[in-house]
């Protein structure tokens, strides 16, 4: 199949509905794919940019929990496609045509949207997660799927054995046909010749549409958790043509791939954007990442007259609308509109839109949600025992400040 024809015959479904409990409190008011990331972006922008850069322009995003923020972001950022040309990124809330309930699992999400597939009748359906950060040309995978005459293709990544316990782990033959598949195995099967590595499913699938509908319709009649990795793939790999597409095959982009499953993974993935060269490059002209840019003035670093300090900003991402005044900033990721006052210090931290850090405040290894005001002289990430009284502190020692926290100095233990 020619690439453009393959792209036109493929419908993308992005699963955007996860509760994201492990990202709480960042997911208290929004679904995981809508969590701000890397400055101006939301997590889902990376998957949708991959679609755009791969030429896949028929995209449904299935939403459910707390989807207002995601819906708004999709409307503002991704309504650039032309419906008249058959291109779209559309958010689909649960239609409840096949069940008066929310989605039970990934396969159930597709089953409940069989009507949509009936309307579109694509040859192939590509199923993607809305909470991964990576660059991938999906057309390579679609081509591989067609060339292998596969019914199901699962993207896989070479992961460490320990890590493999969190994934679906597969074994393949010389043609990459899947010969074994186990979801979250206790002892993942190692790759031949690499006893410490295994093939982990990335939760990215290409299905022949008819195969997909048959499988989810069959699964809907069973008492399962209705999940592709847990219930369908282990059952069908032997009787269907299931292939594994190696994520690293013929890569022109980096092998970077992260599932933003936990607060520590979120923090680390933000840090991975920093440095030169970074682990994940946002400045790649061949693979642009699209997002919504609100009208804001440019970022500004100023000299503070009172303290006679100039800003010292190193190894950081500073979005538009930020004002950094006579402060010290290192290894930080700032979303638009962040303000840091003089004599303040922000290190190894992720500050979301509109956060302000008062004079002399010290912030270390923190994730601060939108519009939080950290008052002058306050500290965060310096004394974890104190932080734990008000905030969540992760296993790796990142302090997470949710939205709506009071800015009273008393709350922050300033001047007490």
């Amino acid at each position, binding site marked *: 199949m020619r690439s453009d024809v393959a792209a036109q015959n493929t419908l993308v479904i992005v699963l955007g509905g996860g509760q994201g409990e492990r990202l709480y409190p960042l997911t208290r008011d929004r679904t995981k794919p809508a969590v701000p990331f890397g400055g101006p972006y939301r997590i889902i922008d990376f998957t949708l940019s991959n679609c755009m850069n791969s030429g896949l322009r028929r995209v449904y995003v299935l939403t459910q929990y707390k989807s207002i923020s995601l819906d708004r972001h999709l409307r503002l950022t991704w309504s650039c496609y032309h419906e008249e040309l058959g291109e779209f990124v559309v958010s689909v809330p649960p239609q409840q045509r096949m*069940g008066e309930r929310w989605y039970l699992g990934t396969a159930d999400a597709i089953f409940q949207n*069989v*009507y949509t597939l009936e309307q579109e009748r694509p040859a192939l359906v590509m199923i993607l997660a809305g909470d991964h950060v990576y660059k991938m040309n999906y057309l390579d995978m679609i081509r591989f799927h067609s060339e292998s005459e596969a019914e199901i293709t699962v993207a896989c990544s070479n992961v460490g054995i320990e890590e493999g316990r969190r994934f679906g782990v597969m074994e393949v033959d010389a043609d990459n046909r899947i010969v074994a598949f186990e979801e979250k195995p206790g002892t993942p099967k190692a790759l031949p010749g690499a006893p410490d590595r295994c093939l982990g499913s990335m939760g990215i699938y290409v299905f022949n549409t008819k195969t997909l509908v048959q499988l989810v319709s069959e699964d*809907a009649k069973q008492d399962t958790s209705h999940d592709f990795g847990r219930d369908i793939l282990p059952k069908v790999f032997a009787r269907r043509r299931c292939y594994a597409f190696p994520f690293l095959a013929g890569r022109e982009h980096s092998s970077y791939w992260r599932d933003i499953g936990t607060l520590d993974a979120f923090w680390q993935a933000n840090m991975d954007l920093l440095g030169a060269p970074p682990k994940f490059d946002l400045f790649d002209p061949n693979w642009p990442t699209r997002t919504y840019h609100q009208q804001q003035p440019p970022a500004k670093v100023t000299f503070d007259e009172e303290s006679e300090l100039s800003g010292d900003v190193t190894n950081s991402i500073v979005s538009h609308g930020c004002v950094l005044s006579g402060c010290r900033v290192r290894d930080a990721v700032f979303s638009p509109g962040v303000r840091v006052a003089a004599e303040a210090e922000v290190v190894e931290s992720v500050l979301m839109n509109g956060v302000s850090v008062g004079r002399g405040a010290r912030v270390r290894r923190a994730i601060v949600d939108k519009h939080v005001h950290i008052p002058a002289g306050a500290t965060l990430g310096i004394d974890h025992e104190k932080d734990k009284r008000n905030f969540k502190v992760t296993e790796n020692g990142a302090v997470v400040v949710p939205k709506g926290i009071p800015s009273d100095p008393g709350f922050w233990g300033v001047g007490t």
Partner: protein
Amino acid sequence: MTTVLLVEDDPNQLLLYTEMLKGEGYDVSGAKDGREALRMVEESRPDLVVMDISMPGMDGIEAMSRMLSKDHKLPVILNSAYATYKDNFRAWSADAYVVKSSDMAELKETIKRVLAQNSAESGG
């Protein structure tokens, strides 16, 4: 006795199928459209539903979807004069699809097969 709910808007066909299935030893009840069928399934769950598709009011595919959304294990056979709907993805939720014919052997066989399958799956 095994209970079968027949959903069929044509009264003559409803009568014909009812007699045929009674002859096979089933306890048969009839509904004239999707809505009535939904009500009847709620009142008393049959062992199997044989559902026409093209009916006034609520069609058979819609009625089946609603039944399955409440009881995903309810066996349903779609029984239509047209093969067209076979290709409709929503029809694939049915346990089987039979195109109506004057020879009822296929429907009889399909009913037996679906009942046997479901009884095997439920361990009964």
